[in-house]
C-alpha cells in the first residue's frame, strides 16, 4: 500500500494528472466519511474533501516521504475540519420549532435541504441518536474519536496525524468514550 501511494505522489508531483486522480479515488470515501462524522453535514464534508485534495495537490512538494502518505492526507483533512468547527457559530437545533414560523422546524426552512432521504443514508433510530451525540462531543475529543472509530486507526497513527503524544491521544479517547457513554446510556 505504502510504496504505491508514494509512487503515485511522485508521479503527481511531476504533473501526472491520472496519478493524482488515483490518489483521489483511494481516499475520497475515507475522507468523506471522516469529515461527515466530524462536521455532521454532508455539504461541508464534501467541501472539506475537495479542499483537502486541492491542498494536497498544491503542496505535493512538501510531502515528506519518510512518513506515510495517509498520515499526511489525514492531517490536512482533520485540520480543515477542526478549523471549520472552531469558526462555526453556535449551532441552533434544526429540530426546534421556530417561534416566528409556526409549525415549521429548521429543516423546512433550509433553502437547500440536503437532508432529504435520497441524499442521506437511512439511519436507524439508534444510529441517528449516536450521530447526534457525536455532534455534542467537545472539539478536542471529536477528532481523536473520529479517527479512532471511523477510520479504525491505532493510537500511534492518531498521534502521528494530530502531532501529539500517544499519551494525550489515549487520555482523549478515554474521556471521549466516557462522554459518549454517559450521554448514550440514558437514551438507549
Amino acid at each position, binding site marked *: 500500500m505504502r510504496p504505491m501511494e508514494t509512487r503515485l505522489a511522485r508521479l503527481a508531483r511531476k504533473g501526472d494528472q491520472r496519478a493524482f486522480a488515483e490518489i483521489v479515488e483511494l481516499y475520497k470515501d475515507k475522507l468523506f466519511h471522516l469529515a461527515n462524522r466530524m462536521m455532521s453535514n454532508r455539504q461541508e464534508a464534501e467541501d472539506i474533501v475537495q479542499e483537502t485534495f486541492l491542498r494536497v495537490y*498544491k503542496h505535493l512538494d512538501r510531502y515528506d516521504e519518510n512518513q506515510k502518505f495517509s498520515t499526511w492526507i489525514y492531517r490536512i483533512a482533520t485540520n480543515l475540519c477542526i478549523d471549520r468547527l472552531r469558526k462555526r457559530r453556535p449551532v441552533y437545533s434544526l429540530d426546534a420549532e421556530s417561534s416566528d414560523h409556526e409549525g415549521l422546524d429548521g429543516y423546512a426552512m433550509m433553502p437547500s435541504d440536503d437532508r432529504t432521504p435520497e441524499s442521506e443514508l437511512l439511519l436507524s433510530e439508534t444510529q441517528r441518536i449516536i450521530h447526534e451525540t457525536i455532534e455534542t462531543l467537545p472539539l478536542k475529543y471529536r477528532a481523536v474519536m473520529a479517527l479512532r472509530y*471511523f477510520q479504525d486507526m491505532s493510537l500511534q497513527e492518531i498521534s502521528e496525524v494530530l502531532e501529539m503524544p500517544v499519551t494525550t491521544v489515549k487520555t482523549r479517547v478515554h474521556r471521549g468514550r466516557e462522554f459518549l457513554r454517559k450521554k448514550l446510556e440514558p437514551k438507549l
Partner: protein
Amino acid sequence: MKCGDAIAYMHEYLDGDLPLEQRRKLKHHLSECPACAARFQSMQHTEALLRAMPVEAAPADLTHKIMKSLPRTRSPKSWTTWVRRHPGMSAAAIFLLIMLSSFVAMWNQGQQLSLKGDDLEHVVVKGRTVIVPEGERVEGDLIIENGELQVLGEVDGNLTVIDGNVTLASTAHIAGKVKEIDRAMDWAWYKLTSWFDTLAYGS
C-alpha cells in the same frame, strides 16, 4: 482491586493495550462488582455502536469535481518556496536588485550630450562641445553631461561638467564654482545629492 483502577483497566482493554495478567484481574473484579460490570457492559455497547456506524460513500461526481478544481499547471518546486523560507534575504535581494537596476538605467541614460541651465540662449553647441562665446554672459548655472565645455565669456553661476572637461579661456569669468565629475561613484553621489536638493528646495 479498587473500582477506579478497574475503570482504567477497562479503557486499556478497549484500547487493546491490557496485558493478560491485568485482564485476569479485571475479569475477577467484574465478577464481584455489579456496578463495574454494568459500566463495562455499557462501554462495550457504546464501542460496538460506534464501530457499527454505516460508512457513507462520497457523492459520485466528487472525483470529477475535484479534478476540475485543480489549477491547470502544477508549478514544480519554485523560487517561491525559497522566498517563503528566507523572507529577510529575499527582501534584501530585491532591494539590491532595484538599486542596481535603477543605477544602471540612470548610467546608461547619459550617453549623449545633455545641457542644462537657466539661460541657454547665450550658449553655442557644436557637436559635443558647448561654447560660451567671448563677450556673452550666461545668467545662472550650467550643467553639461558627456561633453566638452569651452568658456570664453562670462558665467554668472556654478559650472558642472560630468564625464567631460572644461576649457577656460583667459577671457573667461566664472562667478560660482567649477565642478568636474568623472567617475561613476562621484556621478552617483552627485545624482543623489541633487535629487535630495530637488526634494528639499524644489528644483
